[in-house]
């Protein structure tokens, strides 16, 4: 039978390094929460370097001529609003600032994507901020078109066969600026997909890649879910010409437009949490190596 004193003597108290390497989750989570919340109360205005991808999209929109038609897709699930909305708001504002540029708005992802569109439109508020832009002449909204990838491919071949009416039931023939200007996907001067979920094989994003990118060689841009951006890099810059990397991409675009929107606000938290995670990884590894060093017998150190 073991005496209490003997057992205590045989057990060694773990080293501080070992204890640090086996921390429970609550303190890690608590610090992350602080890094997330603080920038909301005390904006840091962290600087955002503008990448070539955002500049390329900006330059492309700048080069659009009156009469050019742009396809702006809102195919992100409403749950992913936080990742895509800021980028689309910035891009839509830029498109609306270009005189004579026509915008076809559509979503293919799911019925709730229409709510994603509604929220973007509420922020941009075309009637108030762009009173010269008229529905049917400068922009149209086709709403949600079901069918996923197959529909995206067919829409690229013959848009008005797949969407003969707009969301409000008006035949597209009644909008000659759009009906006559676009016969196939090749007629879009710029195609901007909102999504990226599911990667290159995602049933909507993959469809855009195959139809507008590979088949019609359109100027294709993605407002991207950052978690899958690495998957799209093999297609950049030959097929996909630009990718906005979630809120960081939105912040870059806002900087190009000299405005401070939701992307710039969220980029503070993004930078702070990344700072914390990177510091955590580096410190943990320093402690880990030191712990390994301490584990060796004194003679072999």
């Amino acid at each position, binding site marked *: 039978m073991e005496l209490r004193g003997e057992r205590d003597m045989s057990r060694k108290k773990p080293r501080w390094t070992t204890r640090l390497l086996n921390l429970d989750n609550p303190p890690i*989570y608590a610090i992350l929460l602080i890094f997330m919340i603080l920038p909301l109360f005390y904006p840091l205005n962290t600087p955002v370097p503008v990448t070539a991808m955002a500049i390329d999209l900006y330059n492309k929109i700048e080069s659009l001529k009156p009469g050019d038609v742009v396809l702006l897709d809102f195919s992100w699930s409403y749950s992913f609003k*936080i990742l895509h909305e800021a980028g689309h708001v910035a891009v839509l504002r830029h498109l609306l600032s270009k005189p004579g540029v026509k915008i076809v708005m559509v979503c293919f992802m799911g*019925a709730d994507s*229409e709510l994603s569109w509604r929220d973007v439109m509420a922020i941009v508020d075309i009637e108030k901020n762009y009173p010269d832009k008229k529905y049917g002449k400068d922009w149209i909204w086709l709403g949600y078109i079901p*069918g996923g990838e197959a529909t995206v491919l067919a829409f690229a071949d013959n848009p008005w066969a797949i969407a003969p009416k707009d969301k409000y039931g008006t035949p597209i023939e009644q909008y000659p600026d759009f009906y006559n200007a676009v016969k196939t996907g090749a007629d879009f001067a710029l195609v901007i997909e909102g999504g990226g979920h599911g990667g290159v094989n995602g049933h909507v994003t993959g469809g855009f890649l195959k139809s507008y990118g590979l088949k019609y060689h359109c100027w294709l841009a993605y407002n991207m879910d950052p978690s899958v951006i690495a998957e799209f890099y093999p297609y950049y810059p030959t097929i996909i010409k630009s990718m906005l990397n979630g809120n960081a991409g939105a912040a870059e675009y806002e900087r190009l437009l000299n405005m401070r929107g939701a992307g710039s606000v969220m980029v503070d938290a993004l930078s702070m949490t990344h700072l914390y995670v990177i510091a955590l*990884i580096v410190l943990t590894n320093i402690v880990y*190596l030191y712990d390994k060093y301490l584990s060796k017998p004194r003679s072999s150190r």
Partner: protein
Amino acid sequence: MSIFTTIRRNIDRAFLTFFMLFLLIAYPLAPTTDFGKFMTSWYTKITGWITVLGAWAIMIGVFALVRNNLKNIYKRAEGWYYDAVTIVSFVIFVVAGFMGGSTGPIMTWLTTNVTRAVSTALLGIEAFLATSAYYRAYRLKTLDAAILLISSLIVLMWMGPVFGYLFPQINDLAVWLLLNPNSAAQRAMFVGIGLGLIALAVRSMLGRERYGA
């Protein structure tokens, strides 16, 4: 074996082969020539069928979901209350859908205040879980782990915009990693997947692929 038996046994394969070949030929064609217009118009029609078939598949899924969950509730199987929550949520969303459609006021309220709230919370939880995983798994144990760790750190720094501002070289390094090793590995993978799909298609057309066997 009679001719009818042969047809009956091979009719599914014949349909499969016909549609596969048709879509294969139609996909790269643009409606600029008469032939292109003919093919793409049929491509559009077949796409409509795919949508209808998809709707039927959803109905089968709905039937299976309701049946299995009701069975669990009836049998008081372990965790039956979760099944009850599923059924109640399902009924609420179906009723809301019939009352005003997918963007009607009830559905909009439900999507905004329930679905989006829950999904955003799940996304938020992911951030905490990922941080914990970084803390526990990213250790310099081997040379492979070191390579993974260093490349991940570079891409993480690129994702956090402030690092790109402080150390502009990080951006170039991360983009190089994404454009070269990442793209090379992924292209190899895509080519492999593509070849596998071609083999699967040929096997299906030849009747060598036994689905559900």
